């Protein structure tokens, strides 16, 4: 592992201390000692008047796996008055297709204890939204060797919700399960440093789901479980 690291630094040093500025039009196929870790920027024939030059780039990232933590703000005022706002935990995997696009899958988890609005009985809620969608990336800044990079992205995905509430009151169901389909959209910013990435994001989601009951005079209305989640996380680029 250390060996590869030193090879990469050596390649980078060649670029940094070279008197000639690299020309994107006349890069040769690199066949030097750091070839194994220096990628060719463009694989095109060398111009006749071009001086051969070796440029080393950080490997293009194929995707990343990240864990995020966000602040969960439910759009439903009822949910806000029952459980309030809280922390959302998210695990996300993104696989890049080309430089601008990526497929992603993510699972969020929100759980909170609360009180019913009328008699303040104890209740607890968890929501598990699962998303499978696409991300569109735009590079805002990158270092010359692409070791560091700052990208903006936009994400959109259908979302499947699983949720459960546990009510500590004798006159309603003890457990309510609810599920349903919705959607999400989000924007974010990823700073990559080698294999490390830091993500900041803002997600908006929408879905109305409902449960069922057999207790007379108890109603199970549609509940908006959509939310605004703002947060950040850390990831591993590969």
């Amino acid at each position: 592992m250390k060996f590869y690291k030193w090879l990469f630094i050596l390649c980078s040093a060649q670029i940094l201390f070279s008197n000639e500025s690299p020309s994107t039009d006349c890069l040769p196929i690199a066949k030097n000692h750091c070839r194994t870790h220096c990628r060719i920027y463009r694989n095109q024939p060398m111009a006749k008047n071009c001086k051969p030059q070796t440029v080393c780039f950080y490997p293009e990232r194929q995707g990343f796996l990240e864990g995020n933590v966000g602040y969960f703000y439910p759009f439903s005022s009822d949910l806000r008055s029952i459980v309030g706002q809280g922390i959302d935990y998210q695990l996300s995997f993104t696989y890049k297709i080309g430089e601008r696009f990526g497929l992603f899958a993510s699972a969020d988890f929100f759980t909170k204890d609360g009180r019913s609005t009328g008699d303040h009985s104890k209740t607890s809620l968890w929501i598990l939204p699962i998303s499978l969608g696409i991300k569109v990336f735009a590079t805002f800044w990158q270092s010359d060797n692409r070791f560091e990079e700052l990208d903006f992205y936009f994400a959109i995905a259908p979302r499947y919700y699983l949720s459960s509430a546990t009510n500590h009151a004798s006159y309603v169901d003890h457990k309510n399960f609810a599920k349903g389909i919705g959607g999400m959209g989000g924007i974010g910013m990823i700073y990559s440093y080698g294999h490390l990435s830091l993500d900041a994001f803002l997600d908006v989601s929408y879905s109305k789901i409902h449960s069922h009951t057999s207790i007379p005079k108890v109603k199970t209305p549609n509940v908006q479980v959509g939310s605004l989640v703002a947060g950040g996380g850390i990831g591993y680029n590969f």
Partner: protein
Amino acid sequence: MKKWYCIVLSLMMRILVAQTWITNPISNSPNGVFVDVSLTFDSSTNQVFAAWADGDSSGGGAPYYSIYDPLSMIWTTNQIPSSPFGVFNDVSLTFDSSTNQVFAAWVDSNSPPYYSIYDPLSMTWTTNPISNSPNGAFIDVSLTFDSSTNQVFAAWTDGGNRGGVPYYSIYDPLSMIWTTNPIPNSPNGVLFDVSLTFDSSTNQVFAAWTDGDNSGGAPYYSIYDPLSMTWTTNPISNSPNGVIANVSLTFDSSTNQVFAAWVDSNSPPYYSIYDPLSMTWTTNPIPNSPNGVLYDVSLTFDSSTNQVFAAWTDGDSSGGAPYYSIYDPLSMTWTTNPISNSPNGVISNVSLTFDSSTSQVFAAWGDNGAAKAPYYSTFSTSTLPLPPSSGNGKKITNRFPYEKEWFNSLNWTASPSANVIRYNVKRNGKLIAKDLMQLNFNDFNRPENGIDIYAITSIDTDGNESSPLIITVR
């Protein structure tokens, strides 16, 4: 046959239900030779007001008033502020239900009568002489509230040796001015006492007064017609002559009859019932009453049992407890007894009022023979505990994350009865909660729309259940 059945049933109930007065001195009151006391019930705050005059010839003083808090059962006593000092002979109270103000009036032996209005918000009295009134040796004043015109009526008598006719005055709440005139067609006399009451069935004000000079005579009554604004004065028919020191009126709203009662100085008290159709009085002595040098009588109507209460005092020097008598409208009989638990005294005055919030009759009296605080006594017409005095309920949406239900939240104030320990709750006639210790109850799983009628009852230590307090939740 039906009437006899009713009489027997009434007497059986009277035997079964032990009725007692609970007597105590009015708390926080200074001692004094108090010659007169008056009571009224403020139905806006459910408080009983008492006022009394200091008739001590050594210096007199401003009248006192006291307010009875039904929850703590404590009187708060103060002097009516801004009142001139005087040897006041009499004080009277009435409650103006249009403004929720208590009116007090009192008379001195050589000045116009004074009145004072108690504002429940600022809890202050505003005192002034009754405007347009002549000076006189007034010995008695009476107030009543005419709920048809929202006017307070005052009447007073001139007890000086030269005699005179009674005066009346009407307080206009808009201009806040009294209009004072003599009651017309009234014979002159050394008048000792006057009493007013309002007949809400005919919207007429009744006045009655007594001629206490040695020549004796029947009491007079006068009816004020609000349309013609004139009084029609006559002696109370079928009344024996006597040296009558005092008369009292009350209106029985269950039978729409005016009751009068008076005391002579050496006979049992008399009562008379005015029949509005024949416009005649039927007069009889209150039975089973001992003779005595009776000084004063008071009447009040108990609207919870539709009974008229009378109380009177024996003012001779040997002293004694006040007496009371209850008139049962079914059997048309009086049951007379001394007010229990009362200390003996040379009692010159007694006053009654009915507290409709707790269904209790209040009596109060002062002792003319010794410097003491006035006494009061409460009488509940039933041994059953009283229901909670007030309550409310509302429908509340109870939202859980994925469920929604509605419940009715009820709360009530504690029963004024001291021995109540639990409460039962019925919904639409069905018992849903029993032996509750707390003063609230949530009835869950109610329909979103619909009316529920709840009955809250008090249970005392003997297991007796009160009449219900009804709370409707929509």
